[in-house]
């Protein structure tokens, strides 16, 4: 049994099967981008262990094909196991070993990047300070307890949780959040301007004056989904756990600006749907954004952000210039100059946290060294034979 398992995980057939599955997955994922958009297709097909069916369901779902993570992981294990099984140390095979080691690091680095890398953006107007970046592709419902004069307590509920759970309970909240409606993309319209149509979904807050029109998920790279939900707040008796009378239903949406407020048990809460935030123990202030163009044209020559980086924990207070190909690396995060607002009033920095960013560099160096050794060994051998023959 063990031998059969070892044979299986070290077999070339498994490698071929994985590569075939990867080709099929890439084909299907590419087609799916038409309807799902690039980000959603990547998530469902490549950054998952399985492709699930049906796509949108809070109930039964079944895996219908291995996802990118599973195929990549099996390939990685197959490569490691096959190498371990057939490994015979010899100096003349040093090049082969190095090349394989480089490939393993590259595959593992790719998998870890997919699993752990976080990409977000920090948009700053001149003079603005922020200590968080935002993920414009992921939303969260932030429930903020503002009662304490010293701090706000934020309970951030990812959109994926709203999508999969109808009733959300958490120890930090003395109430249940019942997701009555969730729209991955929607258009809001003032109720007094709408002609016919459904009534407002909410009966509290600004949502009581707003009508929601469901839209298909945005698929273009320059389009943005307006995630919208109608949520009911149902208090829970902390002693018995029993639910009490509902406080009402609120509409939360990306398209609504300021948070909405309600009170319960002498505490004040705010509700807001917003891009997922990643807070940092340091702050970034945009001091000056410059955008140079080639003379007489609108073609960008250079754009750069002069920022002040302030980190109280590390007593850091320094100015940094971020521009194309010159990112700022700080505390495991890399800030790239990613874009700017059309009228140059704001700079957009891409913030990347990738613990395994070094893996591809290391892998390339090792593979190059391995190939050099391997070809060098054969070249020397060939040259010796030729010399001996003559």
């Amino acid at each position: 049994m063990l031998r059969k398992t070892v044979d299986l995980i070290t077999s070339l057939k498994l490698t071929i099967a994985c590569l075939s599955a990867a080709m099929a997955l890439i084909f299907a994922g590419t087609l799916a981008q038409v309807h799902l958009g690039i980000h959603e297709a990547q998530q469902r097909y490549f950054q998952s262990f399985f492709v699930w069916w049906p796509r949108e369901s809070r109930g039964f779902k079944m895996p219908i094909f291995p996802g990118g993570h599973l195929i990549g992981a099996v390939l990685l294990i197959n490569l490691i196991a096959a190498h371990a099984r057939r490994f015979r140390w010899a100096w003349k095979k040093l090049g082969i070993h190095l090349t394989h080691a480089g490939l393993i690091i590259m595959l593992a680095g790719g998998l870890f990047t997919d699993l752990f890398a976080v990409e977000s953006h920090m948009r700053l107007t001149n003079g603005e300070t922020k200590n968080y970046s935002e993920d414009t592709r992921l939303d969260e419902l932030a429930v903020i307890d503002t009662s304490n004069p010293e701090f706000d307590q934020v309970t951030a509920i990812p959109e994926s949780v709203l999508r999969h759970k109808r009733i959300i309970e958490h120890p930090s909240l003395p109430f249940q959040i019942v997701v009555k409606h969730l729209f991955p993309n929607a258009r809001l319209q003032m109720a007094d301007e709408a002609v016919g149509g459904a009534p407002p979904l909410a009966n509290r807050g600004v949502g009581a004056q707003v009508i929601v029109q469901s839209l298909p998920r945005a698929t273009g790279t320059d389009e943005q989904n307006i995630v919208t939900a109608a949520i009911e707040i149902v208090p829970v008796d902390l002693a018995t756990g029993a639910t009490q009378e509902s406080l009402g239903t609120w509409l939360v949406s990306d398209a609504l600006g300021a948070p909405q407020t309600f009170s319960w048990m002498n505490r004040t809460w705010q509700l807001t749907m917003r891009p997922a935030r990643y807070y940092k123990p340091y702050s970034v202030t945009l001091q000056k954004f410059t955008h140079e163009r080639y003379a007489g044209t609108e073609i960008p020559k250079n754009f750069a952000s002069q920022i002040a980086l302030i980190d109280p924990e590390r007593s850091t207070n320094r100015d940094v210039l971020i521009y194309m190909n010159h990112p700022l690396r700080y505390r495991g995060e890399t800030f790239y100059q990613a874009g700017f607002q059309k009228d140059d009033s704001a700079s957009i920095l891409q913030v990347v946290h990738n613990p395994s960013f070094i893996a591809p560099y290391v892998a390339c160096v090792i593979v190059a060294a391995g190939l050099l050794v391997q070809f060098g060994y054969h070249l020397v051998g060939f040259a010796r034979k030729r010399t001996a023959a003559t």
Partner: protein
Amino acid sequence: MGALGSRTAKVFLFAFAVLLGACNRSADEIKVYRLAKPSGEPAPMEKDAIASTNAPVRSTIERVPSANSNVATPPNWEPQPLSEMRQASFLVHGENGATADISFVRLGPAAGNVLDNVNRWLDQLGQPPVTPNKLSSMVQKVPTPLGEVNIVDLSGKPENGDASKDGRIVAAIASDGTNTSFYKMRGNAGVVGAEKENFIKWVVAMRSSSGEQTVAQSAPLTSDKPQIKWDIPFGWSPAPASAMRYASFSAEGKIDISVVTFPGDGGDDLGNVNRWRQQIGLAPTDESHNNIASLRASDATFSTIDITGANARTIAAWTRKDGRAWFFKITGSSSAVEKEKPNFVKFVQSVRF
């Protein structure tokens, strides 16, 4: 083969364990964290204050919508009751019962697609949607102190519409990446046409630093914050509000005056005073009680304290009324605060709950 198989199996198990560990992603987890409230120190001092006192960073993205604006409007614009959605609302009367409704609504950044909004308005006027190419010829770009606004002038006759109240929309959309502002005048075609010039002037005035971003004399319109009144001293300008501030003012461009309110008692006095001391670089003390004085106002008695640090001075006044704590604070350089102290005292004394 046995030893070899065993070694391969160990490698496989190790790789599998690493993989399982890697699978433990937290993307779908509910996160709970605490954020220090935005402090009241003035913006120019913020950088130094953070480095020296570990003060929290001010968030600039969440702003309580302003309830009103101090931008002047034509005399024939009749103010209408505000709602949580509408932050300014007017009605203009024409002849024979004709009217036009004017509104200002500020929404999030995702609401700013001009084409979608124009097509929605066209739909309201019973008109077919337009393409992006056609839209570009319809949009008039008007420069304002806060950037360009897109203005459209749309006409049509909605089904079953009342011509005395409908038939034309002049609207302006401005997006700054953080918020999207909608200014809209909809009503009788003649009234809208007659008021178009005034409307554009109003939009430009609102898009100034003292326009839509200011909190005027009355309080922000949130569902659970009571409204209080006060008299603003001459020379004070409304400043952009934050999520935590009930109102903000600035004087001489370098003095920061804040009004903050919390439900409950707002914490004990000693703790609050020590927090303010830390904000201006002073060490906490247990003897602050001795320096707290009373200030009598028409509606309440305030506790006050005057503290001076190396580079800044803070005078704070606070009171507790109807289950809420109210904090009024002025911060700036010592000499500037000294100059504004009489105005600050008058301001606190003018507060009417």
